[in-house]
């Protein structure tokens, strides 16, 4: 019987980036390519699993930490192990045989990225935090800002643009109607005497 850990470890053995095929609506093929490109930027061997967040209570591997431990047990390779749900909210990382600030690099994302950043931006941010050499400072800054009530602005989504279009439609509809009524009213007051005089007769 193949468990989730067995399966993912088997995939990671020949490809350091595993992206679950249960989540095509969260991770498009283009997104997958960008995620792979980001992971290639890591200074040490890095294994990333983008998993489906099933929120099933019965799942013995619902904890990412437990999954990472099992993945390392099965792979037996040094490096950074990252498990991320397909929506990009909550990056979990552990390292075996390396010494990088992966804790602050992962936690910084919680405070600096909005809820709809998505998996690509989350992993890009993680890698960038590691490569900057300032992961701890960045984490401290983001954490302090968050404590002062600051929140990252959500990224624009298609829905926002559509909402804007509808709002523009509503406002212009109202304005055009108002202008039309004003124009008709104005015309009815300022009709030239000659035409009116004729009509009276």
């Amino acid at each position: 019987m193949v468990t989730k850990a067995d399966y993912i470890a088997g995939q990671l053995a020949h490809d350091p980036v595993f992206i679950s095929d249960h989540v095509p609506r969260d991770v498009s093929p283009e997104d997958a390519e960008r995620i792979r490109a980001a992971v290639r930027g890591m200074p040490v061997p890095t294994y990333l699993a983008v998993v489906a967040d099933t929120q099933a209570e019965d799942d013995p591997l619902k904890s990412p930490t437990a999954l990472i431990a099992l993945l390392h047990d099965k792979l037996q390779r040094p490096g950074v192990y990252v498990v991320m749900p397909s929506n990009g909210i909550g990056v979990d990382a552990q390292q075996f045989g390396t010494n990088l600030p992966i804790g602050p690099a992962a936690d910084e994302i919680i405070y600096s990225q909005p809820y709809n950043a998505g998996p690509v931006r989350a992993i890009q941010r993680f890698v960038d935090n590691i490569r900057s050499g300032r992961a701890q400072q960045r984490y401290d800054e983001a954490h302090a800002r968050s404590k002062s009530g600051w929140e990252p602005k959500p990224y624009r989504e298609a829905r926002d643009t559509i909402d804007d279009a509808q709002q523009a439609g509503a406002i212009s509809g109202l304005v055009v109607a108002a202008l039309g009524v004003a124009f008709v009213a104005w015309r009815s007051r300022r009709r030239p005497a000659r035409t009116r005089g004729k009509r009276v007769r």
Partner: protein
Amino acid sequence: MRRAGVSRSLAVGLLALSLLASVASAGATSAADRLDRIAAALRRSPVFVDPDVSYLLDARDRAALGKQIGAAGIPMYLVGVPLLSEDESGGEADYFLYLLHQRLGRPGVYLVADQRGDLDWTSYQVPRKASLDFDTAHGDTSLPRCLHDVIDAFARAPSAAPSTPQTPAAPEPDGRHQRPSAGRLAGEFAKVFFPVLIVSALVLWPLWLIGRLVFGGVRRAVRGDSRTLGRRRLRRRAAAELTRLAEALGHASDDRGRGRATADYDAARLLYDEKSDPGSLFGVIVLALDGQDALRADTATPDPRCMVDPLHGPAPGTVRVWLPGLPDRRLPLCEACRQAAKEERRPLMLIIDGEKRPYYQAPGLWERIRGRHASLPEDVLEYLGVE
């Protein structure tokens, strides 16, 4: 303009249609990966449990269920798989089973258990009655027990003609990460624009009419009706205009209008002293204004005053127009009355014997001077019986 509007909305509609078609085809192609993987596994064995939900059934359960399916006498496929809003089916079990049946291309009863152990099934071209007692699958029993019961129920179900259920509705395409096209945006714009336009017009037009009525009423109540002169206002205005003409005459030693203005003044003065009926008092006003016009324009032949209301000002030309109580002919009108709508051209009213009447219908003086202008002061004197 209307034709342009129609063709534009047609273009927007076509764009929206083509977009819909492209979205639908994209939805069908993006469902490739896991369905292929699952279909390949089902070709080897009728029971497949995805590693993500391997906790649902242990090896012994799987073997037992596989054996049971093999003995059921009808083809059955059992799949354990996460069903999530992020997957190709949008988490809809019936759509997942529909896609899986398409991919596998075999008739059978397709059963799916999701990550919570919830069960769903669809029967494709199986010679068994497809309706099952719902309680069979949703009792308090464990998943293996439940699956056992469902498979058993299908195996024992009475024969029936093979049938294919209706195609379930595809999940809404997920457009979160795609920039909406210009056509889509135009469609969304139009979808709101036209209803708002129509509703606003329907609301604003009566509102404007009501507003005009209310404001007009308020203005009349506050300012009084400027189109009607009562006796007190007539008398005050007549005295004021006479004084104004006298002052103007005092400053006009070499004005060409002096002769006319003096004649106007003499006639007005006399009229003011001898008569006190509203028509005469208004005659005083018109005479005094005529004299002021002569001095101001430096001419012995000033323009007549506006026929609608002489207080409007001089009328440089005549317009063929209808006024109540007058024959239809060319009348002097001020510029504003020329431009005004018919209903705005209401003559100045005087209150005569407690009744409002147009000033030119006042009895006495106005019967004589109505419509005559060139010899206005002389006509007044004649009316007064002065030679």
